[in-house]
């Protein structure tokens, strides 16, 4: 990724009368761990869907590594180096854990339908290599012991982690994580966040993280973007965002569990 990273320039999307995201501008630098926060319905997932090409912006432009990615199809954007996880888990439920990951190496495959049929030495070599790399990734996330289980039979927390492994297999430069710790208990959450920091360093990733738990976000993010009603209301370091009156107002009385962010 060149020095520019990801850039949103006044991105807007409307669904009928509803403006879900309104003139949002933001930058995620290479190698940065950034947070994207905001109350329910603020438009966080929609921003992810815009970046990854699930939706095209009504107005505005998105750039990655210095090139426009607006209007590309999702798989083309993944090929440019952006991978994601889904808030409402979207694994390949009937495939095994192993297959979920190896299928995500797709962009880097040398084989195609022809090689699947001829099954020559290079084909077998590649399959062995992918098996090894898949095993490695699964081990980092302690999923290797369930590698032959169908993904849909995994416990919730494992499914969330498998989503991250699968996204990593595409070999991204920017990883978008949509509430990766949702539904986990505090101990699991802490462990996952450590893991996220670990993979960020190991694979030199930029990460954009959506997470409701303020303690977690403030703890690991270098920079935080705050959305409310589709608009960006603040941006800065955790300390700056915590003191920001607009952010405090947005969060006051919003989440009884975490309370105001002060």
């Amino acid at each position: 990724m060149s020095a520019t990273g990801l850039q949103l320039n006044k991105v807007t999307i409307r669904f009928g009368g509803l403006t879900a995201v309104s003139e949002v501008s933001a930058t995620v630098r290479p190698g940065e761990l950034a947070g994207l926060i905001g109350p329910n319905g603020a438009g966080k997932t929609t921003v992810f869907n815009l970046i990854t090409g699930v939706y095209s912006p009504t107005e505005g432009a998105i750039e990655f590594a210095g090139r426009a990615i607006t209007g590309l199809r999702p798989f083309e954007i993944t090929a440019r180096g952006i991978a994601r996880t889904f808030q409402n888990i979207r694994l390949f439920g009937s495939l095994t854990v192993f297959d979920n990951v190896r299928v995500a190496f797709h962009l880097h495959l040398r084989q195609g339908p022809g090689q699947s049929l001829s099954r020559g030495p290079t084909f077998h070599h590649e399959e062995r290599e992918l098996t090894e790399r898949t095993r490695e990734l699964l081990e980092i996330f302690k999923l290797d012991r369930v590698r032959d289980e169908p993904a849909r039979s995994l416990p919730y927390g494992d499914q969330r982690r498998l989503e991250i492994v699968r996204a990593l297999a595409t070999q991204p430069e920017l990883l978008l994580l949509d509430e990766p710790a949702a539904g986990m208990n505090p101990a699991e959450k802490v462990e996952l966040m450590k893991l996220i920091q670990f993979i960020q360093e190991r694979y030199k990733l930029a990460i954009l993280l959506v997470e409701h738990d303020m303690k977690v976000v403030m703890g690991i993010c270098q920079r935080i973007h705050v959305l409310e009603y589709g608009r960006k209301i603040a941006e800065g370091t955790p300390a700056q965002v915590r003191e920001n009156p607009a952010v405090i107002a947005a969060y006051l009385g919003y989440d009884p569990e975490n309370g105001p962010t002060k």
Partner: protein
Amino acid sequence: MPSWLNRSQLVLVAALLAAGLAQFFSNHLDSYVLSVAMGVGINIVLASSLNLINGFTGQFSLGHAGFMAVGAYTSAVLTGKLAAQLNPIFGGHVYLLFPFALVVGGLVAAVAGGLVGAPSLRLKGDYLAIVTLGFGEIIKVIFQNVEYVGGAKGLNAIPDYSNLFWVFGTTAITVYTVWALLNSTYGRGFLAVADDEISAEAMGLNTTRYKMVAFVVGAFFAGIAGGLFAHLNNYINPSGFDFNKSIEIVVMVILGGMGRHTGVILSAILLTVLTELLRQFGDYRMVIYSLLLIVLMILRPQGLMVWPFKNPLWFYLKAYWPFRMLARRPTS
């Protein structure tokens, strides 16, 4: 084992040899048994290739009879009206005309598959079913109105080139192709598309391309099956490739358990033999056939061969070879 063949390809070669041997000894067989056996082989080709589209890739095509028709007519014209022009090309090897006609029939069907697929594979579920259904009907109407191929009367006096070798050779190649296509990292993409298109795209898979490959390969083998059918029956007419024929193949795939290799092969065998056995009941045939289907679907709604079987005997049997193959998960 030669180093350039791996185990699955060795099985394919063995199957081809077996088909050749079967053909060699076929004059000892009753001609009715022979024709039923070939009908079984052709239906395995049809069901396995549709299984690639409807089962493994999760699309819903109702156009298989249409692709079959394209292959049947193309190959019948090549071995019939055009035979005199084509034979010199093969020198003394006139026996090559038939495989040539089959492959060309398959290729033309594949092109038709591409033409139907390109605009319609963006559609989902029911919509694709309707488009492919419409395609099947259009193909039928076209053949009904082209006098060159006999119009509604159809084509007759097609040479009876189909034999055990060609039919079961094709069957082996089809089954191998579908199996090999799916059993690779690339091939797991078909299943991923069936499971969740949005996340397949997010993982970098060009879902339209995958659906297209499934569709074109499926149409290719349907076309070849059509050619085998034409040269087995010696007679084809447009209404033989109507909606009912497509449904018949869809039923084989559903009964076999959508996206199961072995189950779909077994259900193709079962349903073909069943249809034959029911001939003696004349007009009641379709009634009995439908009732049997209903009973089967009630007894095994997940498909004939789908796991797990409840029978405890199975628990022991499945440790052993041919059963072990049945017990495997869908595609590995």
